[in-house]
Protein backbone atom coordinates (compact mmCIF):
# COMPACT_ATOMS: atom_id res chain seq x y z
CA UNK A 1 0.00 0.00 0.00
CA UNK A 2 1.39 3.37 -0.95
CA UNK A 3 1.83 6.47 1.05
CA UNK A 4 -0.61 9.19 -0.03
CA UNK A 5 0.47 12.74 0.70
CA UNK A 6 -2.86 14.24 -0.35
CA UNK A 7 -4.57 12.07 2.19
CA UNK A 8 -2.06 13.23 4.81
CA UNK A 9 -2.93 16.88 4.24
CA UNK A 10 -6.61 16.06 4.23
CA UNK A 11 -6.57 14.42 7.64
CA UNK A 12 -4.05 16.77 9.23
CA UNK A 13 -6.63 19.24 10.67
CA UNK A 14 -8.51 16.37 12.31
CA UNK A 15 -5.34 15.02 13.88
CA UNK A 16 -4.38 18.45 15.13
CA UNK A 17 -7.72 18.62 16.89
CA UNK A 18 -6.70 15.40 18.57
CA UNK A 19 -3.28 16.73 19.53
CA UNK A 20 -4.94 19.61 21.32
CA UNK A 21 -7.07 17.29 23.43
CA UNK A 22 -4.04 15.07 24.08
CA UNK A 23 -2.04 18.03 25.36
CA UNK A 24 -4.94 19.32 27.43
CA UNK A 25 -5.44 15.91 29.04
CA UNK A 26 -1.70 15.66 29.77
CA UNK A 27 -1.53 19.10 31.36
CA UNK A 28 -4.59 18.59 33.54
CA UNK A 29 -3.47 15.06 34.40
CA UNK A 30 -0.05 16.32 35.47
CA UNK A 31 -1.44 18.97 37.75
CA UNK A 32 -3.68 16.40 39.36
CA UNK A 33 -0.83 13.86 39.62
CA UNK A 34 1.37 16.44 41.29
CA UNK A 35 -1.29 17.13 43.91
CA UNK A 36 -2.38 13.53 44.41
CA UNK A 37 1.27 12.49 44.72
CA UNK A 38 1.88 15.04 47.42
CA UNK A 39 -1.19 13.81 49.28
CA UNK A 40 -0.03 10.21 49.07
CA UNK A 41 3.53 11.08 50.09
CA UNK A 42 2.34 13.02 53.11
CA UNK A 43 -0.20 10.37 54.10
CA UNK A 44 2.47 7.68 53.91
CA UNK A 45 4.73 9.68 56.22
CA UNK A 46 1.89 10.19 58.66
CA UNK A 47 2.41 8.81 62.16
CA UNK A 48 -1.18 7.52 61.97
CA UNK A 49 -0.46 3.90 61.04
CA UNK A 50 -3.98 3.14 59.82
CA UNK A 51 -3.87 6.07 57.40
CA UNK A 52 -0.37 5.46 56.11
CA UNK A 53 -0.96 1.72 55.63
CA UNK A 54 -4.28 2.18 53.84
CA UNK A 55 -2.98 4.86 51.54
CA UNK A 56 0.17 2.82 50.99
CA UNK A 57 -1.84 -0.23 49.96
CA UNK A 58 -4.15 1.72 47.68
CA UNK A 59 -1.19 3.38 46.00
CA UNK A 60 0.48 0.00 45.47
CA UNK A 61 -2.75 -1.36 44.04
CA UNK A 62 -3.19 1.49 41.62
CA UNK A 63 0.43 1.23 40.58
CA UNK A 64 0.23 -2.51 40.07
CA UNK A 65 -2.80 -2.52 37.77
CA UNK A 66 -3.23 -1.24 34.21
CA UNK A 67 -4.41 2.29 33.62
CA UNK A 68 -6.67 1.05 30.83
CA UNK A 69 -8.68 -1.09 33.22
CA UNK A 70 -8.79 1.72 35.73
CA UNK A 71 -10.20 4.00 33.07
CA UNK A 72 -12.91 1.49 32.20
CA UNK A 73 -13.64 1.27 35.87
CA UNK A 74 -13.93 5.01 36.39
CA UNK A 75 -15.97 5.49 33.28
CA UNK A 76 -18.31 2.53 33.30
CA UNK A 77 -18.51 1.34 36.89
CA UNK A 78 -18.54 4.51 38.95
CA UNK A 79 -21.89 5.62 37.45
CA UNK A 80 -23.44 2.63 39.23
CA UNK A 81 -22.45 4.40 42.42
CA UNK A 82 -23.88 7.68 41.28
CA UNK A 83 -20.62 9.22 40.02
CA UNK A 84 -21.06 10.24 36.42
CA UNK A 85 -18.04 11.89 34.87
CA UNK A 86 -17.63 13.34 31.37
CA UNK A 87 -15.06 11.35 29.38
CA UNK A 88 -12.28 13.92 29.56
CA UNK A 89 -12.76 14.40 33.30
CA UNK A 90 -12.77 10.65 33.87
CA UNK A 91 -9.61 10.40 31.78
CA UNK A 92 -7.84 13.15 33.65
CA UNK A 93 -8.78 11.61 36.98
CA UNK A 94 -7.49 8.25 35.81
CA UNK A 95 -4.21 9.73 34.64
CA UNK A 96 -3.87 11.87 37.76
CA UNK A 97 -4.51 9.00 40.16
CA UNK A 98 -2.30 6.56 38.32
CA UNK A 99 0.60 8.93 37.93
CA UNK A 100 0.02 10.36 41.40
CA UNK A 101 1.27 7.04 42.77
CA UNK A 102 4.47 7.58 40.79
CA UNK A 103 4.98 11.20 41.73
CA UNK A 104 4.47 10.21 45.35
CA UNK A 105 7.61 8.10 45.03
CA UNK A 106 9.45 11.05 43.54
CA UNK A 107 8.45 13.24 46.45
CA UNK A 108 9.47 10.56 48.91
CA UNK A 109 12.86 10.07 47.28
CA UNK A 110 13.38 13.82 47.04
CA UNK A 111 12.76 14.25 50.73
CA UNK A 112 14.75 11.18 51.72
CA UNK A 113 17.68 12.33 49.62
CA UNK A 114 18.16 15.42 51.71
CA UNK A 115 21.04 14.19 53.87
CA UNK A 116 20.33 13.38 57.47
CA UNK A 117 23.01 15.92 58.38
CA UNK A 118 20.71 18.69 57.18
CA UNK A 119 17.95 17.67 59.57
CA UNK A 120 20.52 17.47 62.33
CA UNK A 121 22.10 20.80 61.51
CA UNK A 122 18.62 22.34 61.54
CA UNK A 123 18.03 20.89 64.95
CA UNK A 124 21.41 22.08 66.18
CA UNK A 125 20.37 25.54 64.93
CA UNK A 126 17.25 25.08 67.05
CA UNK A 127 14.86 25.49 64.11
CA UNK A 128 11.29 24.32 64.65
CA UNK A 129 9.79 21.54 62.57
CA UNK A 130 7.99 23.98 60.29
CA UNK A 131 11.06 26.17 59.89
CA UNK A 132 13.13 23.11 59.06
CA UNK A 133 10.69 22.02 56.36
CA UNK A 134 10.24 25.40 54.75
CA UNK A 135 13.77 26.76 55.02
CA UNK A 136 15.98 23.69 54.81
CA UNK A 137 14.30 20.56 53.50
CA UNK A 138 11.86 21.68 50.81
CA UNK A 139 14.26 24.08 49.05
CA UNK A 140 16.78 21.25 48.78
CA UNK A 141 14.28 18.50 47.97
CA UNK A 142 12.44 20.20 45.11
CA UNK A 143 15.12 20.89 42.49
CA UNK A 144 16.28 17.27 42.13
CA UNK A 145 12.63 16.22 41.79
CA UNK A 146 12.00 18.38 38.78
CA UNK A 147 13.63 16.11 36.17
CA UNK A 148 11.95 13.03 37.62
CA UNK A 149 8.56 14.74 37.59
CA UNK A 150 9.13 15.91 34.04
CA UNK A 151 9.91 12.32 33.11
CA UNK A 152 6.51 11.16 34.29
CA UNK A 153 4.95 14.09 32.53
CA UNK A 154 6.32 12.74 29.26
CA UNK A 155 5.33 9.19 30.13
CA UNK A 156 1.79 10.35 30.82
CA UNK A 157 1.68 12.17 27.53
CA UNK A 158 2.46 8.92 25.80
CA UNK A 159 -0.28 7.06 27.64
CA UNK A 160 -3.06 9.43 26.65
CA UNK A 161 -4.08 7.19 23.71
CA UNK A 162 -5.68 5.01 26.37
CA UNK A 163 -8.31 7.69 26.77
CA UNK A 164 -9.67 6.67 23.39
CA UNK A 165 -11.08 3.63 25.15
CA UNK A 166 -13.42 5.88 27.09
CA UNK A 167 -14.46 7.91 24.05
CA UNK A 168 -12.17 10.91 24.56
CA UNK A 169 -11.43 12.23 21.08
CA UNK A 170 -7.68 12.56 21.56
CA UNK A 171 -5.04 12.04 18.91
CA UNK A 172 -5.24 8.25 18.74
CA UNK A 173 -9.01 8.24 18.64
CA UNK A 174 -9.09 10.80 15.88
CA UNK A 175 -6.61 8.72 13.96
CA UNK A 176 -8.70 5.62 14.44
CA UNK A 177 -11.81 7.38 13.35
CA UNK A 178 -10.02 8.62 10.26
CA UNK A 179 -8.83 5.08 9.62
CA UNK A 180 -12.38 3.80 10.11
CA UNK A 181 -13.74 6.23 7.59
CA UNK A 182 -11.20 5.74 4.85
CA UNK A 183 -10.04 2.18 5.58
CA UNK A 184 -6.44 3.37 5.62
CA UNK A 185 -4.30 2.84 8.66
CA UNK A 186 -0.83 3.53 7.37
CA UNK A 187 -0.96 7.33 7.18
CA UNK A 188 -2.92 8.11 10.37
CA UNK A 189 -0.96 5.71 12.56
CA UNK A 190 2.38 6.81 11.16
CA UNK A 191 1.39 10.42 11.71
CA UNK A 192 0.37 9.74 15.28
CA UNK A 193 3.75 8.09 15.77
CA UNK A 194 5.47 11.09 14.25
CA UNK A 195 3.54 13.49 16.45
CA UNK A 196 4.52 11.55 19.54
CA UNK A 197 8.12 11.24 18.46
CA UNK A 198 8.48 14.92 17.70
CA UNK A 199 6.86 16.04 20.91
CA UNK A 200 8.83 13.48 22.94
CA UNK A 201 12.15 14.38 21.38
CA UNK A 202 11.38 17.99 22.07
CA UNK A 203 10.57 17.18 25.68
CA UNK A 204 13.72 15.09 26.00
CA UNK A 205 15.75 18.16 25.12
CA UNK A 206 13.77 20.11 27.69
CA UNK A 207 14.34 17.33 30.19
CA UNK A 208 18.11 17.32 29.65
CA UNK A 209 18.08 21.04 30.26
CA UNK A 210 16.05 20.61 33.43
CA UNK A 211 18.43 17.93 34.62
CA UNK A 212 21.33 20.17 33.92
CA UNK A 213 19.68 23.10 35.64
CA UNK A 214 18.14 21.39 38.66
CA UNK A 215 19.56 17.87 38.66
CA UNK A 216 21.97 18.20 41.52
CA UNK A 217 22.72 20.48 44.39
CA UNK A 218 26.35 21.28 44.90
CA UNK A 219 27.36 20.65 48.43
Amino acid at each position, binding site marked *: *MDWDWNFVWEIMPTLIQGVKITILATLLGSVLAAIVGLGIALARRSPNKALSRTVGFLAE*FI*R*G*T*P*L*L*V*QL*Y*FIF*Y*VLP*DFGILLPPLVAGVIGLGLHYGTYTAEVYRAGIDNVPRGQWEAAKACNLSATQTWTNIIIPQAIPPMIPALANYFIAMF*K*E*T*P*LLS*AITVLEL*MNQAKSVANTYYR*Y*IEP*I*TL*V*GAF*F*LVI*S*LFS*VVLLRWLEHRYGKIER
Partner: protein
Amino acid sequence: MTQWSGYLGLILQGALVTIELTLMGSVLALIMAFLAGMGRVSRFFALRWLATVYIEFFRGTSIFVQLFFAYFVLPLIGLELTPLQAGVLALGLNVGAYAAEVVRGAIQSVGREQYEACIALNLGRWQGMRHVILPQALLIMLPTFGNNAIELLKATSVVSLISLADLTFQAQVVRSQTGNTLVPFTTILIIYFALALIISWGVRSLERRMARGLDGVRV
Protein backbone atom coordinates in the same frame (compact mmCIF):
# COMPACT_ATOMS: atom_id res chain seq x y z
CA MET B 1 -28.63 -16.65 36.92
CA THR B 2 -25.42 -15.99 35.00
CA GLN B 3 -22.95 -18.80 34.41
CA TRP B 4 -20.12 -17.15 36.26
CA SER B 5 -18.05 -20.29 36.33
CA GLY B 6 -17.97 -20.39 32.54
CA TYR B 7 -17.00 -16.77 32.37
CA LEU B 8 -14.37 -17.26 35.05
CA GLY B 9 -12.86 -19.88 32.75
CA LEU B 10 -12.77 -17.29 30.01
CA ILE B 11 -11.00 -14.82 32.27
CA LEU B 12 -8.48 -17.43 33.35
CA GLN B 13 -7.75 -18.14 29.71
CA GLY B 14 -7.13 -14.43 29.37
CA ALA B 15 -4.83 -14.54 32.38
CA LEU B 16 -2.79 -17.23 30.64
CA VAL B 17 -2.43 -15.07 27.56
CA THR B 18 -1.42 -12.12 29.74
CA ILE B 19 1.18 -14.22 31.54
CA GLU B 20 2.47 -15.59 28.26
CA LEU B 21 2.77 -12.08 26.84
CA THR B 22 4.49 -10.82 29.96
CA LEU B 23 7.01 -13.64 29.99
CA MET B 24 7.85 -13.54 26.31
CA GLY B 25 7.84 -9.75 26.28
CA SER B 26 10.19 -9.70 29.28
CA VAL B 27 12.62 -12.06 27.61
CA LEU B 28 12.71 -9.93 24.48
CA ALA B 29 12.97 -6.77 26.59
CA LEU B 30 15.85 -8.24 28.57
CA ILE B 31 17.76 -9.17 25.43
CA MET B 32 17.20 -5.75 23.88
CA ALA B 33 18.08 -4.03 27.16
CA PHE B 34 21.48 -5.67 27.35
CA LEU B 35 22.22 -5.25 23.66
CA ALA B 36 21.26 -1.58 23.58
CA GLY B 37 22.44 -0.76 27.09
CA MET B 38 25.91 -2.11 26.40
CA GLY B 39 25.80 -0.56 22.96
CA ARG B 40 25.35 2.80 24.64
CA VAL B 41 28.62 2.45 26.52
CA SER B 42 30.48 0.90 23.63
CA ARG B 43 33.76 2.29 22.34
CA PHE B 44 32.41 2.27 18.79
CA PHE B 45 30.51 5.27 17.61
CA ALA B 46 28.30 3.29 15.24
CA LEU B 47 27.11 0.99 18.00
CA ARG B 48 26.47 3.88 20.35
CA TRP B 49 24.53 5.67 17.64
CA LEU B 50 22.46 2.63 16.77
CA ALA B 51 21.59 1.98 20.38
CA THR B 52 20.66 5.61 20.94
CA VAL B 53 18.36 5.69 17.94
CA TYR B 54 16.63 2.52 19.05
CA ILE B 55 16.17 3.77 22.59
CA GLU B 56 14.99 7.26 21.73
CA PHE B 57 12.65 5.98 19.05
CA PHE B 58 10.91 3.42 21.21
CA ARG B 59 10.78 5.64 24.25
CA GLY B 60 9.65 8.55 22.14
CA THR B 61 6.68 6.99 20.39
CA SER B 62 3.83 5.67 22.40
CA ILE B 63 3.42 1.92 22.93
CA PHE B 64 -0.01 2.16 21.30
CA VAL B 65 1.40 3.58 18.16
CA GLN B 66 4.03 0.84 18.10
CA LEU B 67 1.40 -1.81 18.66
CA PHE B 68 -0.90 -0.51 15.93
CA PHE B 69 2.04 -0.15 13.66
CA ALA B 70 3.18 -3.72 14.24
CA TYR B 71 -0.34 -5.00 13.79
CA PHE B 72 -1.71 -3.00 10.90
CA VAL B 73 1.19 -1.44 9.04
CA LEU B 74 3.96 -4.04 9.09
CA PRO B 75 1.83 -6.59 7.15
CA LEU B 76 1.36 -3.99 4.43
CA ILE B 77 5.09 -3.95 3.89
CA GLY B 78 5.22 -7.70 3.84
CA LEU B 79 5.91 -8.55 7.48
CA GLU B 80 3.12 -10.85 8.63
CA LEU B 81 2.81 -11.19 12.37
CA THR B 82 0.23 -12.99 14.45
CA PRO B 83 -1.41 -10.76 17.04
CA LEU B 84 0.66 -12.52 19.70
CA GLN B 85 3.87 -11.87 17.80
CA ALA B 86 2.91 -8.27 17.22
CA GLY B 87 2.11 -7.88 20.91
CA VAL B 88 5.35 -9.45 22.09
CA LEU B 89 7.35 -7.46 19.57
CA ALA B 90 5.86 -4.10 20.51
CA LEU B 91 5.95 -4.73 24.26
CA GLY B 92 9.43 -6.21 24.25
CA LEU B 93 10.96 -3.52 22.10
CA ASN B 94 9.24 -0.77 24.02
CA VAL B 95 10.09 -1.94 27.52
CA GLY B 96 13.52 -3.03 26.28
CA ALA B 97 14.27 0.58 25.38
CA TYR B 98 13.49 1.71 28.90
CA ALA B 99 15.41 -1.16 30.44
CA ALA B 100 18.40 -0.40 28.22
CA GLU B 101 18.80 2.88 30.03
CA VAL B 102 18.69 0.96 33.29
CA VAL B 103 21.47 -1.29 32.06
CA ARG B 104 23.51 1.68 30.97
CA GLY B 105 22.90 3.52 34.23
CA ALA B 106 23.84 0.48 36.28
CA ILE B 107 27.01 -0.15 34.31
CA GLN B 108 28.00 3.46 34.70
CA SER B 109 27.10 3.56 38.37
CA VAL B 110 29.58 0.84 39.13
CA GLY B 111 32.28 3.11 40.41
CA ARG B 112 35.05 4.26 38.12
CA GLU B 113 37.45 2.76 40.61
CA GLN B 114 36.24 -0.72 39.70
CA TYR B 115 37.15 -0.12 36.07
CA GLU B 116 40.51 1.18 37.18
CA ALA B 117 41.12 -1.85 39.36
CA CYS B 118 40.45 -3.96 36.27
CA ILE B 119 43.02 -2.04 34.27
CA ALA B 120 45.53 -2.22 37.10
CA LEU B 121 45.03 -5.99 37.15
CA ASN B 122 45.48 -6.01 33.39
CA LEU B 123 42.04 -7.51 32.68
CA GLY B 124 40.81 -7.02 29.13
CA ARG B 125 37.74 -4.87 28.49
CA TRP B 126 35.42 -7.81 28.05
CA GLN B 127 36.98 -9.75 30.96
CA GLY B 128 36.46 -6.78 33.25
CA MET B 129 32.92 -6.31 32.00
CA ARG B 130 32.06 -9.97 32.35
CA HIS B 131 33.66 -10.76 35.72
CA VAL B 132 33.68 -7.46 37.57
CA ILE B 133 31.31 -4.83 36.20
CA LEU B 134 28.26 -6.80 35.08
CA PRO B 135 27.92 -8.92 38.24
CA GLN B 136 27.83 -5.74 40.28
CA ALA B 137 25.67 -3.85 37.82
CA LEU B 138 23.15 -6.68 37.74
CA LEU B 139 22.37 -6.17 41.38
CA ILE B 140 21.77 -2.49 40.78
CA MET B 141 19.53 -3.20 37.79
CA LEU B 142 17.39 -5.81 39.45
CA PRO B 143 14.93 -3.64 41.38
CA THR B 144 14.33 -1.42 38.37
CA PHE B 145 13.97 -4.47 36.15
CA GLY B 146 11.24 -5.57 38.53
CA ASN B 147 9.46 -2.28 37.99
CA ASN B 148 9.95 -2.61 34.24
CA ALA B 149 8.41 -6.06 34.32
CA ILE B 150 5.38 -4.69 36.15
CA GLU B 151 5.12 -1.88 33.61
CA LEU B 152 5.20 -4.54 30.91
CA LEU B 153 2.50 -6.54 32.65
CA LYS B 154 0.32 -3.47 32.78
CA ALA B 155 1.06 -2.58 29.19
CA THR B 156 -0.17 -6.00 28.06
CA SER B 157 -3.69 -4.71 28.66
CA VAL B 158 -3.44 -2.58 25.54
CA VAL B 159 -3.06 -5.64 23.33
CA SER B 160 -6.78 -6.09 23.89
CA LEU B 161 -7.07 -3.21 21.43
CA ILE B 162 -5.61 -5.42 18.69
CA SER B 163 -8.00 -8.23 19.63
CA LEU B 164 -5.55 -10.41 21.44
CA ALA B 165 -7.58 -12.35 23.97
CA ASP B 166 -5.78 -11.23 27.12
CA LEU B 167 -7.30 -10.50 30.52
CA THR B 168 -8.70 -7.11 29.63
CA PHE B 169 -10.10 -8.41 26.39
CA GLN B 170 -11.84 -11.32 28.06
CA ALA B 171 -13.25 -8.98 30.65
CA GLN B 172 -14.78 -7.00 27.78
CA VAL B 173 -16.22 -10.17 26.32
CA VAL B 174 -17.69 -11.22 29.63
CA ARG B 175 -19.07 -7.75 30.04
CA SER B 176 -20.84 -7.76 26.72
CA GLN B 177 -22.20 -11.25 27.34
CA THR B 178 -23.51 -10.59 30.81
CA GLY B 179 -24.16 -6.88 30.77
CA ASN B 180 -22.28 -6.64 34.05
CA THR B 181 -19.34 -4.29 34.23
CA LEU B 182 -18.36 -4.29 37.89
CA VAL B 183 -17.66 -7.99 38.34
CA PRO B 184 -15.34 -8.73 35.40
CA PHE B 185 -13.32 -5.56 35.82
CA THR B 186 -12.92 -5.98 39.57
CA THR B 187 -11.85 -9.56 38.99
CA ILE B 188 -9.17 -8.67 36.50
CA LEU B 189 -7.91 -5.76 38.60
CA ILE B 190 -7.30 -8.22 41.40
CA ILE B 191 -5.63 -10.68 39.05
CA TYR B 192 -3.36 -7.98 37.64
CA PHE B 193 -2.43 -6.87 41.12
CA ALA B 194 -1.70 -10.43 42.20
CA LEU B 195 0.56 -10.90 39.17
CA ALA B 196 2.35 -7.65 39.97
CA LEU B 197 2.87 -8.80 43.55
CA ILE B 198 4.29 -12.08 42.33
CA ILE B 199 6.74 -10.23 40.10
CA SER B 200 7.95 -7.90 42.81
CA TRP B 201 8.20 -10.74 45.30
CA GLY B 202 10.21 -12.79 42.80
CA VAL B 203 12.55 -9.94 42.05
CA ARG B 204 13.04 -9.17 45.73
CA SER B 205 13.98 -12.70 46.60
CA LEU B 206 16.33 -12.86 43.63
CA GLU B 207 17.87 -9.64 44.81
CA ARG B 208 18.31 -10.98 48.31
CA ARG B 209 20.01 -14.05 46.98
CA MET B 210 22.38 -12.08 44.82
CA ALA B 211 23.16 -9.52 47.52
CA ARG B 212 24.26 -12.17 49.98
CA GLY B 213 27.68 -11.37 51.37
CA LEU B 214 27.80 -7.88 49.89
CA ASP B 215 26.46 -6.14 52.98
CA GLY B 216 28.96 -7.44 55.48
CA VAL B 217 26.59 -10.01 56.95
CA ARG B 218 28.17 -13.40 57.18
CA VAL B 219 26.58 -15.86 54.78
